[in-house]
């Protein structure tokens, strides 16, 4: 793939093996994620799409390959610093620029919604508490949950929890948002409210990588769709190309089952 000035994350030949290579969760994935991309990753379960997403912020440690984010290969344990010395890579520094939303929300149950949202800005970015709270309330207002700021996660519905999880990640002002099946654990009537928030985010120009089974969302909001199977990137294209003119028989087979 040619070098691209707009590239935000460049993934090259990414591999994740288990049991000394007996299981290949990721088997050489190469893709360029550009600023402003809404990249939707689809594929049958076990195809490696979640592993791919979780590798991007090193929740999973890849076996081989590289992930260049902000000019740094974050799969390396040691990197060259500005003075040309090899230093330990501080992954936390990169992770704070990548927001992540999980299937099971993972809100912190012992903290209020507001505390959930201000924890990282205060602890990691050392934002003053008042400022962090003001910003959190503004974000909550955007997703219609300002009045629940002092509630605990247990008092919220699934859809509300996931909306909080999204704005919690946004509170760190990330450069890219990673969504790992954000609607899969929701009751059907709550899927819409979460997708609406994601849609709005996409329209604002946020770079997003979304692993999902929501084909409607992929078609409507995504500008690039990746189809994965057996740890490989099988087909990539615009939503029209993928959904209306699928080339690979695995993709045709998959679409015939889900559409």
């Amino acid at each position, binding site marked *: 793939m040619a070098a691209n000035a707009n590239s935000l994350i460049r993934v090259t030949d990414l591999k994740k093996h288990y049991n000394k290579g007996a299981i290949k969760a990721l088997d050489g994935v190469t893709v360029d994620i550009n600023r402003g991309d809404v990249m939707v990753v689809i594929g049958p379960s076990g195809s490696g799409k979640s592993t791919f997403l979780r590798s991007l912020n090193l929740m999973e440690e890849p076996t081989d390959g590289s992930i260049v984010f902000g000019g740094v290969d974050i799969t390396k344990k040691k990197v060259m610093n500005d003075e040309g010395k090899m230093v330990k890579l501080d992954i936390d520094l990169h992770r704070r620029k990548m927001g992540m939303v*999980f299937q099971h929300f993972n809100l912190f149950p012992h903290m209020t919604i507001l505390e959930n949202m201000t924890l990282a800005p205060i602890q990691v970015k050392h934002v003053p508490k008042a400022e962090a709270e003001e910003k959190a309330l503004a974000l909550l207002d955007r997703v219609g949950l300002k009045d629940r700021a002092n509630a605990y996660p*247990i008092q919220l519905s699934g859809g509300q929890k996931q909306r909080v999880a999204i704005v919690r990640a946004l509170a760190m002002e990330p450069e890219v948002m990673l969504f790992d099946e954000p609607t899969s654990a929701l009751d059907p009537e709550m899927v819409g409210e979460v997708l609406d928030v994601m849609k709005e985010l996409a329209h604002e120009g946020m770079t997003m990588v979304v692993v999902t089974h929501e084909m409607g969302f992929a078609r409507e909001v995504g500008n690039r769709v990746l189809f994965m199977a057996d740890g490989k990137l099988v087909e990539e294209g615009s939503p029209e190309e993928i959904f209306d003119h699928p080339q690979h028989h695995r993709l045709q087979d998959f679409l015939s089952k889900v559409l």
Partner: protein
Amino acid sequence: MFTAAGFAKTWEYVSLFKEGLICTVSMSFLTVVFGFVLALMLAIMRLSNFRPFRALGLTKDGRLRDGGPLLALSRFNPLDFLATAYVEILRSTPVMVQVFVIYYVVLGNVDLPNFKLFGMIRFDRFFPGVVALSMNSGAYLCEIIRAGIQSIDGGQSEAARSLGLSSTQTMRHIILPQAIRNILPPIANEFVVIIKESSVCWTIGVQEIMYAVSATKGATYRIAEPLVIATLLYFCLCFPTSKIIAYFERRMSRGSKR
């Protein structure tokens, strides 16, 4: 078996039982405190990520090896190994043996100060008893703490790390506050267990409840009546305590179910 005269005679030595009660309670309390501190250190060792041979697991270009003995060695954590060995040894040997080893072997040649706690409890017996029981309960409490920490859903730490929090910050703000809820009831239960186990310390002359029984027996030639009193004392200590713990356990679990 029991006679009124027997109880009357035993009653003459009731002050021994009072002392025994104070001794048992204070010994158990100190044991839980010291045991907890020890357990905390052990748990931190067991959960630590201290790997001095980490570099051996990397290839020349700084990537993780696929497998082999060097990878295994790079994952070796000597702190974890030591703590695990300690816990397994202490949990696999009887308390009585541990008490004897501490009293006769480890502290056998140490001249302990010979004063009396509360004016009655011999420190040179009390101290080795507390040391042995603390070492024992430290092993059990370590596993309670470790299990409490590991019972927190992995998604919690993933969410925290994905927000950019370091592993220390994650432990402090996310894992520990939730783990303590799970840990407190079993720790309180361990207190009940120690009250009962501390009875073995009469064998090294700690003046706790069972010591009062044997002293009274020697003086009165009665055994059934002193034992009844000891049984009642232990029951009155342990039963209400465990009921109170169960009550708080129910209350604490009420709000946290997901």
